[in-house]
């Protein structure tokens, strides 16, 4: 009986191949090749091929594994993939299941760093124009760093030695490990959100020195974006002098190490005190100069003629008044003189016009004119006389003898020649003169007293 060929099912074949592969191939191997057809599915899984000049190897990388890949794989990139080969029975093909992916040649972290820098640079996260100025005199300073590390002490010392009036706020965060980047980003966002109560002027994100892996959290995009989004100015103080992280590039200011944080973030109290003293000096000098100059101005004013002889104004005015009165008097005299000349000229004219002929007609006119002239002159004269009488009356009022007009009399002792005011001024037998208003004298003798 001829050997009957066994009939396999499809599944059996695939299963056999799978077993054969498992038996013949190492359970874990690394393959080198160039990426092509890279697809990052929305599920998070990655599908791609690795190829070299001779062939092509379909590959899968599950989302859970891809999460640990720091750089962004892309077509054409030469990589080392580590994993195992297995059969994808549904499609009837074998493929490579990668759990690690690294760039060939340069280190994965180095490549990731370069890629992130290129990406964020393009987005403008490092733009100088986007950097916020640091406040000149920060009084409340937040520190985002590990509570246990050396960095926190370095920062505290470097700040308080220069600027002891600042209050420091420590927000403890892990600075390395899986969760570090996320927690640092979270802390940045939370301090910003709570800053209406925290009132922080500056945030310092810090970590002491370490390897590229140790510092990696500060190269993560999530941290870079949180730094960029922070409304509170961020100062980075990460690693040693030679280390540059992406956080350093995004931060508003960078201290090369935590010990330099103070120099970057805060002013020197001594310098400020010196400046204050200088300002005080400037103000005092200036105000003294102003006072001196004001005093000089005052002295100049006081030395002027007006202040030396304040009456001079009045005196000048009174002299002007005198002059005006004199002018006025002269003018009036002149006016009067002219009127008088006109009058006598009129008389002559009248005389020349054969009076006997014109007399009948003109005599009335003449006498009219004469009357008017006389009246005018009399008015002036009377006016003057009244003024004179008024003046004389005023003078008379001051004259002791005017009292006599009112019936009083003045009695003089002829013997002593003195006025008799009381009975003591006379003795019997004295002869007295009594003067009356009428200028008459009565002589009498003292008979008794």
């Amino acid at each position, binding site marked *: 009986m001829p050997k009957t060929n066994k009939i396999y099912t499809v599944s059996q074949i695939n299963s056999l191949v799978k077993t054969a592969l498992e038996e013949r191939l190492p359970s874990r191997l690394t393959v080198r090749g160039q990426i092509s057809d890279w697809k990052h599915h929305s599920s998070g899984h990655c599908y791609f091929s690795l190829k070299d000049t001779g062939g092509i190897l379909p590959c899968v990388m599950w989302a859970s594994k891809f999460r640990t890949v720091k750089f962004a794989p892309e077509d054409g990139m030469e990589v080392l993939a580590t994993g195992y080969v297995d059969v994808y029975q549904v499609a009837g093909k074998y493929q490579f299941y990668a759990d690690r992916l690294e760039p060939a040649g340069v280190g994965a972290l180095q490549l990731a760093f370069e890629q992130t820098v290129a990406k964020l640079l393009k987005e403008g996260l490092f733009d100088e124009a986007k950097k916020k100025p640091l*406040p*000149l*005199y920060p*009084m409340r300073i*937040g520190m985002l760093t590990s509570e246990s590390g050396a960095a926190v002490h370095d920062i*505290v010392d470097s700040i*308080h030695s220069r600027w*002891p*009036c600042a*209050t*420091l*706020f*420590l*927000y*403890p965060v892990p600075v390395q490990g899986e969760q570090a980047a996320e927690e640092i980003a*979270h802390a940045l*966002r*939370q*301090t910003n*959100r*709570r800053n209406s109560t*925290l009132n922080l002027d500056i945030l310092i994100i810090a970590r002491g020195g370490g390897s590229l892996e140790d510092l990696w959290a500060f190269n993560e995009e999530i941290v870079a974006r949180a730094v960029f989004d922070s409304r509170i100015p961020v100062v980075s103080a990460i690693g040693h002098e030679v280390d540059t992280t992406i956080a350093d590039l995004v931060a508003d200011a960078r201290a090369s190490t935590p010990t330099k944080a103070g120099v970057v973030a805060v002013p020197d*109290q001594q310098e*400020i*005190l010196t400046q*204050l003293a200088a*300002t*005080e000096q*400037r*103000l*005092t000098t*200036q*105000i003294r100069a*102003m*006072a001196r100059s*004001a005093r000089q101005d005052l002295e100049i004013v006081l030395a002027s003629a007006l202040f030396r002889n304040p009456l001079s104004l009045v005196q000048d005015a009174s002299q002007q008044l005198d002059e005006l009165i004199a002018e006025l008097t002269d003018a009036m005299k002149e006016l009067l003189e002219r009127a008088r000349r006109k009058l006598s000229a009129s008389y002559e004219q009248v005389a020349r016009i054969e009076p006997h002929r014109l007399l009948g007609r003109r005599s009335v006119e003449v006498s009219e004119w004469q009357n008017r002239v006389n009246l005018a002159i009399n008015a002036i004269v009377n006016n003057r006389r009244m003024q004179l009488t008024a003046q004389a009356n005023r003078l008379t009022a001051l004259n002791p003898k005017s009292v006599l007009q009112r019936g009083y009399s003045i009695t003089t002792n002829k013997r002593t020649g003195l006025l008799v005011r009381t009975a003591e001024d006379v003795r019997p037998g004295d002869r007295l003169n009594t003067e009356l208003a009428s200028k008459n004298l009565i002589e009498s003798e003292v008979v008794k007293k």
Partner: protein
Amino acid sequence: MKHMAEKSQKNDIGKLSFEEAITGLTDIVGKIEQGQIPLQDSLQQYEKGMALIKHCRTILQKAEKRIEKITEEQTDGEED
């Protein structure tokens, strides 16, 4: 009245932040040095300037070197 005004001015200065005080001081120095204001105002500004300097010195010389810790917010449920 005048005394009260001076007192309230002093209280106001006491409330200023260091930065505000320095800004105010710079302003006063500028005004006085440029001689833009009359003597009487200058004297008032000078006195205010001296009060600001004193306030700044008080702040600087407190020098408490305080350190506090920020703790996670209790009600911190939302992530932004």
